[in-house]
C-alpha cells in the first residue's frame, strides 16, 4: 500500500521560494498570481497493514518539522 504526505510551510511562515516563483510568473506575463506557496510531496511504499496513524507518527518525528510545517496524509 502507499501513502502520500504533503508538507507545507504553515500560514504566516515566510516562504521566500514561493515568493520567488510568484515574481518569476509575474515577469513571464502570468498576471493575477496573488500568492505562491511551495511545499513537498513524499510518497511512501508501505507494508500491508500500515495505518494512517503510523504515517502521522513518521510525520511528527521526521517528515515534517511541526514548528514551521503542517502536513496531510493520504492513504491509497
Amino acid at each position: 500500500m502507499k501513502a502520500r504526505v504533503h508538507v507545507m510551510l504553515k500560514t504566516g511562515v515566510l516562504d521566500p521560494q514561493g515568493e520567488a516563483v510568484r515574481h518569476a510568473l509575474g515577469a513571464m506575463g502570468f498576471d493575477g498570481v496573488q500568492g505562491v506557496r511551495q511545499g513537498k510531496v513524499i510518497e511512501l511504499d508501505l507494508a500491508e497493514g500500515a495505518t494512517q496513524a503510523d504515517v502521522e507518527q513518521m510525520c511528527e518525528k521526521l517528515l515534517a518539522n511541526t514548528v514551521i510545517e503542517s502536513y496531510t496524509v493520504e492513504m491509497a
Partner: protein
Amino acid sequence: MRAAVVVFPGSNCDRDLAVAFEQAGAEVTMVWHKDSELPEGIDIVGIPGGFSYGDYLRCGAIAANSPICKSVAAHAARGGYVMGVCNGFQVLTETGMLPGALLRNAGLKYICKTVGLKVATQASDFTAGYAKGDVIDIPIAHHDGNYFADAETIAALKGEDRIAFSYTDNPNGAIADIAGILSENRRVLGMMPHPERAADAGHGGTDGVALFRALAGALATA
C-alpha cells in the same frame, strides 16, 4: 575541558571547531554519527557546521535522528554543555534541544561573509568573555539561517535573556535579528555565525577566541 566534536557525513567545519577548542586548551575527541555513546567525562559537545546528510529533507533533520544525537540530548538533559554552529544550530533546533527553526534566507541567496554581531547577553559561559553590547566580527556561511519561532517563544527568549548574539545588520531575515540563542539552563548554545572561523590570526579575525577561552575557563578540569 574535555570536548567531543560530532562528525556527520557532510560535516565540513568539524576540524575547525576541534582546533578552536584545542587552542583554548581542550582535549578533543571526534565522535562519529553512528556511535551511540559519547566518550566518558565529556564536558561539552560541539556540533559543527556543514551539510549533514546533504541537507536532505530539511537541514539537520536526518542528523537530529542519528544514534549519536540521542546521547547528545541525554548529555544536555544531564546539564552538559552543547554548542552547535551553523548546521549544528539547525540540528539542535531539529532535536528540540533549542526552540524555533532555521528557514531559507529571506533573500534566497547563500551568504558567505563576515558580519557584525552584537553580544546580547554576558550571562552564559559562552559569552562571559565579552561585554554585553560588544560588537564582534564573525563570518557567516549559510543558505538557511533565517531564525523563526512563534511570538510566544520570541517573547520568552527575550524575557529570559536567552538571545546570545544578534546581527547588527540582519543578513537573512531572522526574527528579532537573532543570530544565536541559549537553552533555558544557558548551557546549550546554537548560533549561525562561525566563531571557529575567527579564532586564529590567519583567519583574518580573532573575535571568536573569547568564546572558546571563556568556555575553557568555566569548564577547566578541577
